[in-house]
């Protein structure tokens, strides 16, 4: 069995671990780690009968995820303090928002960088406040820096000098070079206050962001985790008003694909009009589940295709050619 499908199957129905032999357990953990889903897996199967060695891995992963959650929420609080004087809305995005709001995708979830959304006209003030509070530039290359500032939906990443944690400051959720232009003002206007003085996106916007991130940007690397977020959020918020909100952001197609892929991989319950399978869906499914029993990525041709697609989504062809030429001369090669 494809080990990525094995993982998806266990996340869907944890009781299926009863049938696993030792090699299956090894493949399951290898893929879960590679897809950053070890903590999620651990929480799903905790307490079920399983071999002692597997139970030990579960216990380790749960403790690790809990520490990651504490650190991520602390990092959000550090950003809140650094930006408190500015009196601008600070909207937590992705993993940190799920954790701060106690939403179901956050259970066991690894949280990477701190992602926040602020109004575009506040970007300079936010940047200055973060620099004053000991965040520092990561990208030393002037081309990369200039590229971010001119074309990206976020500041060049900043890293905190002492805590070694990265912050991504967004003013919208897709690069400015992409054809799709989500309604950033609406994202901010309909954001919801959290108890900690920070904000999170509204329910439908949270789903739109997750779908945009996975299917309208990037090459689907680590996609099983992002799709699991979508599966959980759909279970949490349902489908009311989702199609309309996605359409408002130009993300109707991305949202529809996200739902179809989530239904296929994780068995998400969706109304009939959201179900189906278009001509390209099988390819997306193959890309999402391209892992071997060691957690290594497979299907190199499919991956390369999605890598190229991610760039075509991100910018027009002439600009892409110029960008790739510049990066190539600087010695960058795709993995």
């Amino acid at each position, binding site marked *: 069995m494809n080990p990525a499908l094995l993982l998806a199957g266990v996340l869907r129905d944890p009781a299926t671990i009863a049938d696993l032999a030792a090699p299956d357990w090894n493949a399951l953990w290898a893929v879960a780690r590679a897809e950053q889903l070890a903590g999620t897996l651990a929480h799903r199967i905790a307490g079920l009968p399983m071999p002692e060695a597997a139970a030990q891995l579960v216990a380790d992963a749960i403790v690790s995820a809990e520490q990651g959650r504490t650190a991520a929420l602390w990092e959000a609080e550090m950003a809140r303090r650094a930006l408190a004087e500015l009196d601008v809305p600070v909207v937590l995005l992705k993993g940190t928002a799920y954790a701060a709001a106690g939403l179901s995708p956050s259970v066991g979830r690894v949280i990477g960088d701190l992602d926040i959304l602020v109004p575009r006209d506040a970007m300079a003030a936010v940047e200055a406040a973060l620099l004053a509070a000991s965040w520092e530039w990561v990208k030393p290359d002037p081309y990369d820096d200039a590229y971010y500032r001119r074309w990206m939906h976020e500041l060049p990443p900043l890293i905190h000098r002492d805590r070694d944690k990265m912050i991504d400051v967004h003013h919208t959720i897709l690069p400015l070079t992409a054809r799709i232009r989500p309604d950033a003002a609406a994202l901010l206007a309909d954001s919801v206050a959290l108890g900690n003085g920070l904000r999170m996106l509204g329910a439908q916007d949270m789903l739109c962001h997750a779908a945009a991130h996975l299917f309208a940007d990037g090459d689907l690397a680590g996609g099983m985790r992002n799709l699991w977020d979508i599966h959980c959020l759909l279970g949490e918020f349902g489908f009311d008003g989702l199609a309309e909100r996605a359409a408002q952001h130009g993300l109707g197609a991305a949202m529809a694909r996200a739902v179809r892929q989530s239904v296929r991989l994780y068995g998400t319950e969706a109304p009939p009009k959201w179900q189906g399978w278009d001509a390209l869906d099988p390819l997306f499914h193959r890309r999402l589940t391209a892992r071997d029993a060691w957690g*290594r990525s497979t299907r190199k041709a499919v991956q390369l295709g999605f890598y190229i697609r991610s760039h075509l989504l991100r910018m027009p062809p002439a600009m892409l050619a110029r960008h790739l030429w510049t990066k190539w001369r600087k010695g960058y090669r795709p993995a």
Partner: protein
Amino acid sequence: MRHLKLLRIGPIGFRIGSHWRRPIAALDELYRDYPGPRDDIADFNVHLFAARPWRRVLRPSVHIAGDFVIPDAAPLPLAQGLLAAEMGMNLQMALGLRRYLLLHASMVERNGRAVLMTGISGAGKSTLAALLMARGWRLMGDEFALIDCATGLAHAFPRLVSLKNEAIDVVTQALPGARFGPLLQGTPKGAIRHLVPDARAIAAMEVPAEPSLILFPRFGFEPAERPVLPSEAFVRLTQSSTNYVALAERGFEALTRLVQTVPARAIDYPDAATALAMVEALA
């Protein structure tokens, strides 16, 4: 991965896959008396692979990866495949271990009391551990000491002892009957030869011990000894731990307890015989 080795060192199970037979054959030989992972379920995976298919045969070069990876890990020639496997296992421990506080230290035990020896590369951790094993101590490990955050006990990790450069001859002479791996010349750390821990170290590898002494040895100086305050020991051990920060409060509590309950000494020594006498007088 075509070739596979499952093994357990102390409490930690490994699953090592390789494109080539040679590194796995070396592991089979040198780790032949070690058990497999509990329930055959590994804690960590290690991959030894060729970056391009033709590099399996043409100037074969062994890349190291696993569940946890660092960017730009340099590959090794196939002749050093055993070293690649060892580095791969060390890397998983250093980056991925959360069950124990991991200290970069060698460790020996006598009468249930463990002596930890830590210091910079070249301080003599592995050499002293091997020589103490030759004098009847139980070898608990030459690289990592695993501190249980709940109990404070030290768990053994008796992997192959990695002897470097001058230490190879010193230990070969002290342990004429021991089993050794091939002499690996020209590695990134010079010449390396692996020593198989003795039967007792392997048989008792699941038995933890109470830490009783922390030593900070330094090789190449006139004999000297001084007590190390808990505060200094704490700071130096945070530097020699790869997961202290990741363990957060658990790591802080385990480490403060260790330095507050276990005496620490810094010892300088000019040669192995002096060092052994100093360690045995203190322990």
